[in-house]
């Protein structure tokens, strides 16, 4: 295995929560946000770090970035103890908090980059080279002189990602980098991250709720729940463990009885001419579509990925019957007849 870049050995984080129990009396309760967590990430790996809300994801990232001090255990990033040498590590890492910009709201985008240039003491030639490259890859050219407050969410996120990479960090922590972005921005951000990882061997740790982020970017997924690592491996394996299913939505020319689909695919819902078929996420949709198209008058179709929460929930709590077909909210192939 390649050199371990991030190392956690039985890391714990215990918070003491005080709660008012009476007029003056207070109850103290210990909350174990991270419980004996051990893993390593090799240099240049791109890892998805997922789990339900409150599972300990952000506590882990805060310990990795030196914001929080672990209660116990050993933690090293690039050989540095983040909580002891916070500023030394800061020069070598980049952080993007998806919902919190670090750019200067009232100033043109370029001003934020000039501050990074000086605060991180980036050599002039390197700064210029990195800025040019990032501006080109992220399409920021026309935005540099625009005050940040006038940027769209997608533009700002690209701006934030560029800011986190100007100083050539060896590791990049991304917290929900595609949240709230439109499809084009999302694709652009993903393409860019893939490229950075490939060209610079930047280690990337990504927390996200978007399964497609992980599918397209990460060869490895870690799932955390109640502060413990419950899965560490390939995404395909997660689908197997969680027995997750994708959904094929087909619109037929007219109302028909449920499609006789080849097992294990099966119809789970019928509304007028529209039918929903569930099939294992590990199988290709192409064969299924071809077989249906050969026998039924197909007008339109779409494939829905399993929801990341649903996959994890299934994995954590075992299979409990067929999942509810997802509510009809996204990617309508035809207008609803109502």
């Amino acid at each position: 295995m390649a050199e371990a870049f991030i190392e956690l050995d039985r890391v714990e984080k215990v918070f003491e929560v005080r709660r008012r129990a009476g007029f003056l009396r207070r109850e103290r309760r210990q909350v174990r946000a991270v419980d004996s967590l051990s893993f390593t990430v090799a240099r240049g790996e791109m890892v998805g770090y997922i789990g339900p809300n409150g599972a300990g994801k952000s506590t882990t990232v805060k310990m990795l970035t030196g914001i929080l001090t672990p209660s116990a255990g050993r933690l090293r990033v690039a050989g540095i103890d983040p909580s002891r040498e916070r500023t030394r590590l800061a020069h070598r890492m980049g952080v993007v908090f998806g919902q919190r910009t670090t750019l200067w709201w009232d100033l043109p985008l370029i001003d934020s980059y000039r501050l990074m240039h000086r605060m991180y003491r980036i050599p002039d030639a390197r700064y210029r080279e990195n800025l040019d490259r990032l501006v080109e890859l992220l399409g920021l050219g026309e935005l540099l002189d625009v005050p940040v407050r006038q940027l769209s969410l997608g533009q700002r996120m690209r701006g934030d990602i560029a800011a986190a990479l100007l100083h050539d960090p060896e590791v990049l922590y991304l917290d929900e980098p595609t949240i709230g972005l439109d499809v084009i921005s999302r694709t652009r951000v993903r393409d860019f991250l893939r490229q950075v990882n490939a060209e610079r061997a930047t280690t990337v740790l990504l927390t996200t709720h978007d399964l497609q982020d992980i599918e397209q970017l990460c060869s490895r997924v870690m799932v955390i729940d109640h502060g413990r690592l419950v899965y560490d491996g390939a995404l395909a394996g997660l689908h197997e463990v969680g027995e997750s299913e994708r959904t094929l939505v087909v619109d037929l020319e007219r109302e028909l009885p449920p499609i006789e689909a080849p097992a294990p695919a099966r119809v789970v819902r019928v509304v007028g001419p529209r039918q929903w078929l569930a099939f294992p996420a590990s199988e290709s949709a192409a064969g299924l579509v071809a077989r249906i198209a050969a026998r039924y008058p197909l007008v339109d179709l779409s494939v829905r990925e399993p929801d990341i929460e649903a996959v994890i929930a299934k994995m954590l709590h075992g299979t409990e019957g067929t999942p509810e077909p997802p509510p009809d909210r996204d990617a309508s192939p035809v207008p609803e007849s109502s």
Partner: protein
Amino acid sequence: MRWPSRAAEGVRAYRLIAGMWIRSTMTYRASFALTVCGNLVLTGLDFVAILLMFSQVDALGGWTLPEVALLYGLSVTAFGIAHLAFGSMASLGGRVRDGSFDTLLVRPAPVLAQVAADRFALRRLGRAVQGAGVLGWALVAVDVDWTVAKVLLLPVTLLCGAVIFGSLFVAGGAFQFLAQDAAEVQNAFTYGGTTLLQYPPSVFGRDLVRGVTFVLPLAFVNWVPAAHLLGRPYPLGLPDGAAFATPLVALVCAVPAGAVWRAGLRSYRSTGS
């Protein structure tokens, strides 16, 4: 890192961040100009109140108008400098509450400098300028036998006074790690302190003067040095040369304030709140 280089890092980061905030403010020039004028008028009203009192009486606690103006000028100028440099510490609680404090901790710069420079407001310079104006007039109007030592004492007093008030701002900021809505407690000591010092010690009760001398040594911002300049007896019969102990007092304030700050930050990093 050794502390001199850390301090240099802090000053450097402070200048960078404060510069960004000044440029941010300047995108709203009219608003900036208005708040500067507003601030000048508001802080000036303090002194108008003193002038009104002196339209009825000749002395306040035995101090004449130029002498009280000297107290006022020393206190307000020192406070103004500290407020300009560290006034933003008061908004730390808000940053902790909304979670944006974490973004400061991932930057390669001392956190204290980043917090102090956060939302740096040049408009606060108005208070120091107004205080310096009154101080200038007072220095012309008072009756002082100027010696080299007395001339040197003036800038030293202003600097040390700023350090004493600055220590209060820093300690108050650290307290907000524990209680995020405690900015008002801090204000009671800082704004309250500077207002108190605008009047001579002789108008206050002995216990209050004791507290302001020995517990929270605000008396060294102006009461003690002014007494030396004017050749008046020190409050509480402090020994000769007490005025020259001011730098020592400033140090005695700054060191614990730094320790309290570090303790607060350590507590934040272990509890995350």
